[in-house]
Structures are given as structure tokens and as C-alpha cells.
């Protein structure tokens, strides 16, 4: 990544990555969405979070160094700044390429007392992976998450933009089968939904 870091002169802020050093991948639609978002805030910096959501969708669910650099370039911020933001938040996939579906199991308080840990153990055993890991076939990533704030439905799991609960082990098995049969990636689909809800009606369908 060192070629993306540009050190300016003394007392100068680090510069944003240059287009000629990058292999820009945002689609026309993504560029239009980012342009629309820029009108929602008094400065471009505030677009970093939504910009990263766009990148997460455009780069197939994974915020690679290139993805982060593209956001930094398009918003004219330094690479380090945008990377620092991206790695702070748990919903950006910055560690490794996630599976096609991310299964987020809440084991927080209400879910804990309503049987989330047996579900969690069941999933770990069934998929053969632990927290933050991805199955070898690239199908599932498993994550233990904190309260999803729908505790009336405990124990609860989030996949993509869906909350599913209350669940038992049989329900989890059915869910896995259903997900295996899906052609699209719920990780990418979720990022798309996040981007869409930011946009006003006229901005969503640029013609």
C-alpha cells in the first residue's frame, strides 16, 4: 500500500491518492450516488461513511486497500484518514474478503438469557469456523455481535438487511439451506440497501 501514501512538504497534510495511481472501479451509478450525497452535507468529509458503503457494494462486499483508496480519492481525503475511519466500524469488512453471507449472531444480554449461546455453538460446529472466520467455500462468515436492539425477538440473527428471530437450532439449519440456495450475496445486497436509504427519491433514479 506504500505507493498510495504520499507525503507532502513540511506542514502539509497528507495528500489524497491520485487517480493515475489507482484502478478506479466505481460504476457510473456509484459516481452519481456519491455526487448526490455530497449535496447533503456542507463538506465532502462527511461523505466518508456513506462513501465507504458505496465502495463496499462496488467491491463485492470487501473494503480492500484499493476500495478505501478510491473513496479517499473521490472525496479528496488522505488514504490514512479514510482507512482509520473504515477500520473503526464493525460493519465495514476490512479484515478479509467476507463470505457471500455474513451471519451475525447476537449473544448480548437478552439473547444470552434466551438461549443464544447454544445457537452460537451450533453454528460454529456446523460451519466449522469461529468468530470473524469464513468457510473455505467462501459461502459464510460468522460473527458474534452485540445487541441488535430487537430483543423482543431474542435469540436473534442478522443476515444482510434481515433480522431473523426468535430462532432455534432447527431454524438456523433451515436458514443456512435457504442462504445456500440464494444466487446473490446478502453482504453486497445489504450495502446497496444502506446506500439507497441515504438517497432522496429524485436522487435514486438518475436518468
Amino acid at each position, binding site marked *: 500500500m506504500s505507493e498510495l501514501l504520499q507525503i507532502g512538504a513540511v506542514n502539509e497534510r497528507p495528500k489524497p491518492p491520485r487517480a493515475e495511481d489507482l484502478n478506479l472501479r466505481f460504476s457510473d451509478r456509484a459516481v452519481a450516488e456519491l455526487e448526490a450525497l455530497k449535496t*447533503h*452535507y*456542507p*463538506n465532502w*468529509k*462527511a*461523505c*466518508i*461513511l*456513506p462513501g*465507504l*458503503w458505496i465502495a463496499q457494494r462496488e467491491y463485492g462486499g470487501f473494503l480492500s486497500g484499493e476500495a478505501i483508496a478510491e473513496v479517499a480519492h473521490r472525496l479528496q*481525503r488522505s488514504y490514512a484518514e479514510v482507512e*482509520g*475511519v473504515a477500520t*473503526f*466500524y*464493525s*460493519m*465495514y469488512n476490512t479484515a478479509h474478503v467476507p463470505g457471500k453471507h455474513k451471519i451475525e449472531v447476537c*449473544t*448480548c*444480554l*437478552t439473547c*444470552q*438469557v*434466551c*438461549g443464544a*449461546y*447454544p445457537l*452460537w*455453538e451450533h453454528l460454529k460446529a456446523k460451519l466449522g469456523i469461529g468468530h470473524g472466520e469464513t468457510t473455505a467455500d467462501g459461502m459464510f462468515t460468522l460473527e458474534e455481535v*452485540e*445487541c*441488535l*436492539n*430487537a*430483543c*423482543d*425477538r*431474542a435469540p436473534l440473527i*442478522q443476515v444482510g*438487511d434481515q*433480522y431473523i428471530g426468535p430462532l432455534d437450532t432447527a431454524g438456523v439449519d433451515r436458514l443456512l439451506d435457504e442462504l445456500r440456495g440464494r444466487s446473490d450475496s446478502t453482504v453486497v445486497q*445489504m450495502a446497496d*440497501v*444502506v446506500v*439507497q*436509504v*441515504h438517497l*432522496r*427519491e429524485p436522487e435514486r433514479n438518475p436518468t
Partner: protein
Amino acid sequence: MRNPHGAELFCARTPAWAGRIVLKMAELKLLLEHAHESEFATLRGYVARGGYEGLKAALGMDRQGVIDQIKASGLRGRGGAGFPTWIKWNGIPKEKNGTHYILCNADEGEPGTFKDKQLMEQTPFELIEGMTIAAVATQGDVGYIYIRGEFLDAAKAMRRAIDEAYRDGYLGQNILGSGLNFDLHLHLGAGSYECGEESALMSSLMGERGMPRLKFPHAPLPTIAGLFDRPTVINNVETYCCAPYILKNGGEWYATLGAATKNSRGTKIFSVSGHVNRPGNIEIEFGTSLMELLEMSGGMQGGRLKACVPGGSSVPIINAEACEKAIIGYEEMGDVKTMVGSGGCMFLNDHTCIVKFIWRTALFYARESCGKCTPCREGTKWMLQILTRIVDGKGQPGDDQLLLEICKQIDGRSFCGLGDAAAWPVEAAIRVFPEEFDFYIKNGRSMVETPLMATMSPR
């Protein structure tokens, strides 16, 4: 400001000879009255059920008049701290020299709470109208609703409602022909509890890591320099949702609700979960007792009441005896050494191991600490280490005292409220259930021997 009939109401509900409320209260639905009618989430359905009367009333008053109504209502913030709402609104400079922001805290992350989720999904126009009223009162130009990234159903419902409001002239330029301009945007988080803290929320919205900012008196109040360094009103979803009803029916009227309590007015939504038969959101009038709330949720499931965390994971846990005495009100809950908090009420039955419950609470705070200040960053991890060794059966004599010592070092010494909120539950659990900690440390196993206890931790 106080309801003139307050004293009588108080007598009617709490006879001097009884230590607790005897008159049964039922649910009192104000914000949630029409929540289950899908029509209410459409502009037409909302207006047909009296929606936007509050905004129309506000547009007919001068700005101070709106703030006076909120003051008369006695409305206090529903996000956790219970700060009087009118003081925030009144703190916005009256002389305008640039943009004023209206910010909504919809980052609902407090474990046990799910009221903002339901409000956004089922009554989105209450929130839009409430924020617009705040804009009238404080000359707001732009509003943002900061929704946590996981809440996509809520975000979709808000998006539909905002688009509809723009189409029909309830948002945007010259709202309802009044000359008021107000734009409303949605902004989604990306997974961080700390972004619910108001200054961290502003950092996050401005495109930074979700870390809190320096506070008054070391920095100006957010009403002077908040979001993008401009005057900013920030309130919780439920707080804004109250405003339409206050403006519609008058602050005096609102203040008659909950008049039996010392200083809590109106209704409050409690998210009841845990070992109850009918978990869900219940809107009650302040002054209702905690046991009545439990009854409205269908009573205990699977065992007898052992403990309750009445206001979200951050508030001190109380035992069954204290539950019997607890009256819901900001000051009243203090009498049983707990708080209203955000209203995330978890009831626990006698199969629950308190040590394991507190271990999980500590795990939550250790994971969500933003890492900015030392007491919280190190303290939450340290408490977790100790609790983990206790739960693993390797507790050492004096561990409970050590935990209390660490709590003292974190509480009041942290940069933001998360540190305090991490210390309170641990401190309270050791105070209220000392025998459970003693037993676990001495014997290396839980005092509670039930199948549920066994499932409360991995391994």
C-alpha cells in the same frame, strides 16, 4: 409548570398508609396509539388521525411560544440522561448567523432497548413532525437522522416517509406555505455503540471515527458549536415524537400525565424483554409501578422474578424486592438505586446466574469502548478479564473487591458516559448479589444450578 391537580392525583394513587401504588394502571398509549395501523405510516393516514396539527399549531406561534409549550410540558430527554428538552432548544442562539442543525439520535444501541426501532418503523411521521417543530422553535435549516447501520427496516420506513413528506410539501422549501424551509436527511452508522453518545455521533456524522468530543466547560455546548461547529439540537427519537402531541394538546395538558411523580411528565415507552411471556414495547404513564409493567408484559416466564435491569444494560441491576417497590419516574427509580435510562427493561427469572449476566455485560462494554481514554479502555478490559476468570472457575479471593476498586477508578474519571455505564452494572451486581459472587469465587461454580445457567456462556 406543575399540574395543579398533581397533589390530589398523588393521593389517589398512593394512600399515605401504603408504601406502594395500589391503584392499577393500564398502558397509556400516546405515541403508540396508532402504531399497529399500517395506514399511520403513510402521510394520508397520519394526517387523518390528527397528524401535523402540532406543527400547524407551532407555525401559528412565535418561536419562544413553542419552547414555552415544551417547557410547560416538563418533557425530559428519552435517550437516557433525562435532560429537560426545552433547555436544549432554548440554548440555540436567537440571533441567527448561519446554519442551525436539528439532529436525531436514532443510534439505539443500548442492550435491551428497541423502542426507537418501532417508532421509526411504525410512526415515522411523528419523528418527522417532531423534528420540524424543533426546526420552527430553533430556526433549524437542516436535519439529520443518524440511524444505526443495522436498522435497515427502520431506515427504509423513514426513507419512504421522508420522500412522501417532500412530495406533499411537509419538508423542503416553504413548508405548508409558512415560509419555513427545512431539509431532512438520513445518515446511517456502520456498527458502533459508542456512536449513540451525542458528541461521538456528531464525530461519526462528520466522517470521523465514532469518538466523543471535548465537552462543556472545556468546549462550547453543542447548542453553540455542535455538528459542523454550528448550533445543534440533538434529541432521541422518542423525545422528538412527543413534540407533536405537546404542541397539539398544549404543554399544560401533557404535564398532567405522570403528575403523580416528582418530576417526570408524560408517557414513556419501555422495551420489555427477557423472561416475560409477552416481550415488546409498552407505553406507560410515569408513576406506574414496575410490577404493573411486568404484569402488562404477561408476567414472568419459566420461573420467579429474581432481578431486573429496568433501563438498559447501563443502569444498575435491582433484585425482586426492589422491583416490588419501584415506581417508574426519573427520581422515583433513584429510590431503589437504579434509573429509567433508555427504557430497556430486562426481567430475569431465578434460573439466571447473575455472575454470568454481569460477565456478558462487561464483555459488551469492553468490546464497545472506543479506546479514547485510559480508564475505560483499560478498565473495561481488566474487569472483563477478572469476570472471565471467575466464570471459568478460576476466581481468586478478593476478586469482587478488586472489581469494586476498578469500578471506582472508571466511574466519573472517563471521557464520556460509556465508562460510567460500564462501571455501574458491575458495582450494582456485587452490591445487590454479593453472595453469588462469593460462592462462584470460592467454589469455582455458579450458585444457580439450572439448565439455563449452563447456557449463559460458551464452552
